[in-house]
């Protein structure tokens, strides 16, 4: 009987160890769960978040309206700096300098809204692996707005 129980216990430990080994998070920096392609709540754009050094950056990779009324690629026409109004929106880095703080939170970064040319302080909270709360705020977090971003499937390379 004791031999049987010992066998079961050893089997369980081995099985649990094997299971743990399969979890992708166990071998990655937990902050890297932010990496991926995300869609803001208005569905007008898609943002690809990457890591550069130990910070996270998001750039626009898709726009529902990629061209302006004249058929030219849309640029950052609302930028307060006139010299930057010709920068194309596609490829544009709108999230900058986010640092993982632990407990599913990234902060110290900024969010840029090309609709009005405003830059906000930002925090990112991962509600679940496929959902982000992107909070832009002014000075104190209480005065701000949260947008919910959803994770998109990674694209497969075209042949």
């Amino acid at each position, binding site marked *: 009987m004791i031999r049987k129980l010992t066998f079961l216990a050893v089997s369980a430990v081995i099985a649990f160890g094997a299971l743990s080994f399969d979890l992708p998070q166990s071998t990655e920096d937990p902050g890297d769960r932010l990496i991926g392609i995300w869609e803001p709540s208005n569905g007008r754009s*898609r943002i690809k978040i990457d890591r550069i050094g130990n910070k996270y950056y998001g750039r626009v*990779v898709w726009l529902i309206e990629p061209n302006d009324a004249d058929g030219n690629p849309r640029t950052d026409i609302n930028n307060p700096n006139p010299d930057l109004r010709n920068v194309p929106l596609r490829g544009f880095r709108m999230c900058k300098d986010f640092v993982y703080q632990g407990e599913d939170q990234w902060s110290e970064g900024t969010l840029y809204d090309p609709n009005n040319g405003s830059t*906000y302080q930002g925090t990112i909270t991962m509600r679940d692996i496929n959902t982000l709360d992107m909070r832009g705020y002014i000075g104190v977090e209480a*005065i701000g707005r*949260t947008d*919910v971003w*959803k994770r998109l*499937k990674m694209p497969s390379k075209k042949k």
Partner: protein
Amino acid sequence: MPVFAQTDGTADDDIDWSLYEDLGFEDESIKRYANAKIEGLSPAKLISLGYDFQGPYGITPGDLNRADGSTVVGGDEMQVNSTSGIRAEFNLPVVSQTNLVWQMGANYWNTSYNYAETPSASDNPLHQTLSEHGLRTSGINTTVYKPLDEEQFILFQGSADMSGTYGSSLMPTQYLKYSAAALWGKRPTEKKQWGVGLARTYRVGELNYIPVILYNKTSANNKWGTEALFPARVHVRRTINPRNMVFLGYELQGQSFRMYENLPGFDLRDEDLEIRRGEIRVRAVYEFSLKNFIWMSVQAGYRINYRYDVDRLVSGPDIYRAFGLIDGTPDYAQLNGLTNPFYVNVSVNLVSP
């Protein structure tokens, strides 16, 4: 502000953007919802501190029919040099999710009447109470935006306001006035949203139930737009740039003000009277960013009196007249006339990101 430097070493020419075109959600149960805003809309005000000033005009009181059946004779027109007061409003988001936006707010309006000649005890009590106490409104409000799917949404706005001639302490809660509006709407494109609904409102002074139409639209080049919640307000917008906007239009403003504070020798409180004030403000508004999210709003226009009559509300229950369509409703206790002045309103605002 070096927001735009592309420093990841990937030249944009090397990126196949088409890879990102047809992507589904990782979690296939996720739905897309209609956003509460449209492109180009003027920014929502989180905190607003302003000052309102109306130029000279005249008030001619009618005869006041008292509760005991006697009458106070109306008297001559008296000149008001100015009417002015602060306007403070606060709106803070409580829930801001893709599938629900909930906001709570508070407001305080104060209106002081500066008569050319200070009314005396021999003048009509309307003049006396306006000169001595002015009008105040303190209120709380809530707004709930609930998208149903990618196009449809429901909007609810509710408020409780205490309006009257009270001083530093509030009136009993039985004098609160409740307003509400519920709309169903659609957002067919990123630049247009519309809705239809019903409102319970005191905007023309007395209680009314009226249909409301929401219509917000931005032109293809983002230079022009319409912001309307008809009939409460309608504005045409000219966007010089996202930090400078000019509006032309009108707003209905009004409330029912309890005549709460007594006058020397006149027990006004026991008369159960309310001033039904409703006015139309035809105006031009210039809103611009002073710095980042601090905006200034300067408006100038013409205040057109719609109603400044006095109702008797015994024990609180309101009178619903449906613009005179309902027979047998009580007459006003006092019918007053106001001439119309120009006005200006200046406010500094903290706007929403």
